[in-house]
C-alpha cells in the first residue's frame, strides 16, 4: 500500500445513507485473489448494466469524475459484511479517502489495514460538501493527514480525529503486524499466565 500524506483531488458525492458492502462489491466476486485487483468491480451492479455497459446515470460513470480519488458519502457507509474486498475495490479503483458522518465498524477498521483513509466529519458539513460537489461537479477536496484536515471546494477547513497509531501506519504505508510481532515476548508471557489460570482452554 502507498503512504498517505496529502491528497488534493476531485471528489465524488454518493448521496445515500447505509451504502452496504454488498453494493460496494457484490458477493459473487469475492472468491478472487487480492493481487488480481478489484477496482473494475467497484459498485459493480450500480455501475454497469446487465450487458456490462456503464450506466450513464451512476455518478462514477460521469466523465467529470474520471479522476476522482475521494468519495464524500452519507451516514453508515460500508455497513454490512466484513469483506475487506470493499476497501480493496475502492483502493484499486483509485479512491484513497472516504469522508462520511459515520462508517460501518468493520469497514472502518479494514480501511486502515489497506491504505484507505476513512475521515469522519459532522453530518451537516458532509451534507454541505456533497451539495457543493453536486453544484460544481469535478471540484476538488483536499485532505492533509498530517494536519488532520479536510478542505472543501469552498475553502472551509474542518479537522477530523484519527488514532495516532493508525495515522502513523497510513503515513508510512504499513500495517500493524510487524508492530505487534515486536511484542512477541509480552504475548508469550500473557499466554502462559492466562493458560495457567484457565487450564481447560
Amino acid at each position: 500500500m502507498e503512504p498517505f500524506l496529502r491528497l488534493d483531488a476531485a471528489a465524488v458525492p454518493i448521496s445515500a445513507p447505509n451504502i452496504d458492502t454488498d453494493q460496494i462489491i457484490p458477493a459473487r466476486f469475492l472468491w478472487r485473489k487480492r493481487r488480481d485487483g478489484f477496482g473494475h468491480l467497484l459498485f459493480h451492479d450500480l455501475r454497469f448494466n446487465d450487458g456490462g455497459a456503464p450506466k450513464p446515470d451512476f455518478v462514477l460513470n460521469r466523465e467529470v469524475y474520471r479522476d476522482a480519488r475521494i468519495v464524500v458519502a452519507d451516514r453508515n457507509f460500508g455497513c454490512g459484511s466484513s469483506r475487506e474486498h470493499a476497501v480493496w475495490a475502492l483502493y484499486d479503483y483509485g479512491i484513497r479517502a472516504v469522508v462520511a458522518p459515520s462508517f460501518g465498524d468493520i469497514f472502518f477498521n479494514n480501511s486502515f489495514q489497506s491504505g484507505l483513509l476513512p475521515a469522519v466529519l459532522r453530518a451537516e458539513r458532509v451534507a454541505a460538501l456533497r451539495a457543493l460537489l453536486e453544484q460544481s461537479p469535478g471540484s476538488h477536496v483536499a485532505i492533509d493527514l498530517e494536519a488532520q484536515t479536510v478542505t472543501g471546494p469552498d475553502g472551509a477547513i474542518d479537522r477530523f480525529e484519527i488514532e495516532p497509531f493508525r495515522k502513523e501506519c497510513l503515513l508510512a504505508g504499513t500495517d500493524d503486524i510487524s508492530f505487534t510481532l515486536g511484542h512477541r515476548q509480552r504475548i508469550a508471557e500473557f499466554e502462559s499466565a492466562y493458560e495457567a489460570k484457565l487450564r481447560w482452554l
Partner: protein
Amino acid sequence: MAAPATLFDKIWSSHAILVRPDGATLLHIDRHFIHDGSGNAFRMLKEKGLAVRRPDRTFATPDHYVSTLGHDLASINEPHRRGVVEELEANAKAAGLTLFGLSDRRQGIVHVVGPEQGLSQPGMIMVCGDSHTATHGALGALAFGIGASEVGHVLATQTLWQRKPKNMRIVIDGMLADGVHAKDVILAIIARIGTAGGVGHVIEYAGSTIRAMGIEGRLTICNMSIEAGARAGMVAPDDTTFAYLHGRPYAPKRADWDAALAHWGSLPSDADAQFDREMHLDATEIAPMVTWGTSPEAAAPITERVPDPATAPDAARRDSIERALAYMDLRPGTPLTEIAIDRVFIGSCTNSRIEDLRAAAKVLDGRRVVVPAMAVPGSGLVKAQAEAEGLDAIFKRAGFEWRESGCSMCVGMNGDLVAPGERCASTSNRNFVGRQGKGARTHLMSPAMAAAAAIAGKLTDVRQFATRP
C-alpha cells in the same frame, strides 16, 4: 473491591495484553474460526513469511461456497468455488488446524458449528472473518467479525488491536406471544434503533424474555447485532448456558468443568454496573415481523402496511423509502399480508438450527407449499438430528427441497440464488439490494413465518396457523 463491571468489561480486561499510548488494546484471542473466504489472509501471511501462531486455537470449516446438493467437493461444479474450498482444506492441513471438512458430518455454517461443538464458551474472545460472528455472544463470549487483514494478524499473533467499544444494554421483559420468536425480537429491536443504532457499542441483551429463552433463540438475537450496527452482542451465561454446553465435544470435562463453571459464574454484569446506553422493550407487544425494504431496519409487524414515503419525517428518509419501494416493487399502503412471494428460503447462520427447523416443520406439517421452497440445515449434525426426528419427511411432504448444510441462499456465493425480480421470504439476516442475487427482493422473517408464507404464497401472519391442528 473492584469497581462494578459489565460482562463485556470483565471479558475485555481479562484479555488485555497491553495498551498502546493512544488507547488501543492488544487483546488475546481464545478462538479463531476460519471459513472458505480466508484465502487472501493466508496468502498475506505467506507473503510476509509468517506461520500460524496457535493452530490449536484455530478451527476451520467451509460454508460460503459449498454445494447444498451434495456434501462433497465433487458436488461443487464451478472451478472457482471448488478452488476456494480446496484451498481452505489445504491451508488447514498445512498449518495443522482442526478442520471440519466436507467429508465430516460436523461441517456446517461456522456460526452453527462453534456453539454445537462446545467451542464457543462463556468469557472467551472469539473472532472470525465474518460479520455474523456476534452469534457466539449468546454463550456469554465476546465475539465479533473482522476483515481479511485482521484475520492475517490473528493467524500470525493470536492477538488483535481494538479500541474498547461502549456498553449498551437492551432489556426485554415479558412473555412472547404464540407465533412470536427470537427473530421477531431482534427485528423489532433493529426497527426501533436503526441499522446504525448500535455503532461503537457492544450490546448485552438482558431481561426476563432473554432469561426464559433457550440458547438457540439467543444465538439468533446475537447474530443480528451487526444489523443494528453493534460490534458484538452478548447474553450473560446462566444455567441454560451451562446445561447447553455440558457434554459437548469441546466443552471442559470433569475437574475442568467445575473450574470452568466457577469462572463462568463470575462473569455476569455486576448489579450496579453502568451502561453507556440502555433501552427497554416489552416482549408482550412484539408481533411477528417482516421487512418491506432494503435494510433490516425497514421491518414492521405483519399486521401493518407498506409505509408511505409522503408521511416520512424528512426528505432524506422520504428518498430512502422511495428508493427501497422502487427496488422492492411495492406500493405505499399495501397491507403486508397482500405481498405475493415467489420463493422461500429457510436457513443461514441466523435461523438454521434444530429449533428453527422444528418451528417451521410445526407449521408445515400436513400442508403443501405453493411456491418453490428450500430448507438448508446449518450443519451436518443439525441435518442428521432433524432426520432422526422425521422433520425432513415433513419438509419434503410439504414440497420443500431438503438440502445439505451451508450458507446457501443467504448470500448466494455457492450459486443458490434468487432470480432477478423474484421475491423471496427468507430467514436470513440481510435484505440488501442484490444480497440474494442481482435484482432479488428479500423479505426477512422467522422460520415459522417463512413456512407460513410458503403455504400461503404471500406474506402471512403465522398466528392464523397456530390454532389449527
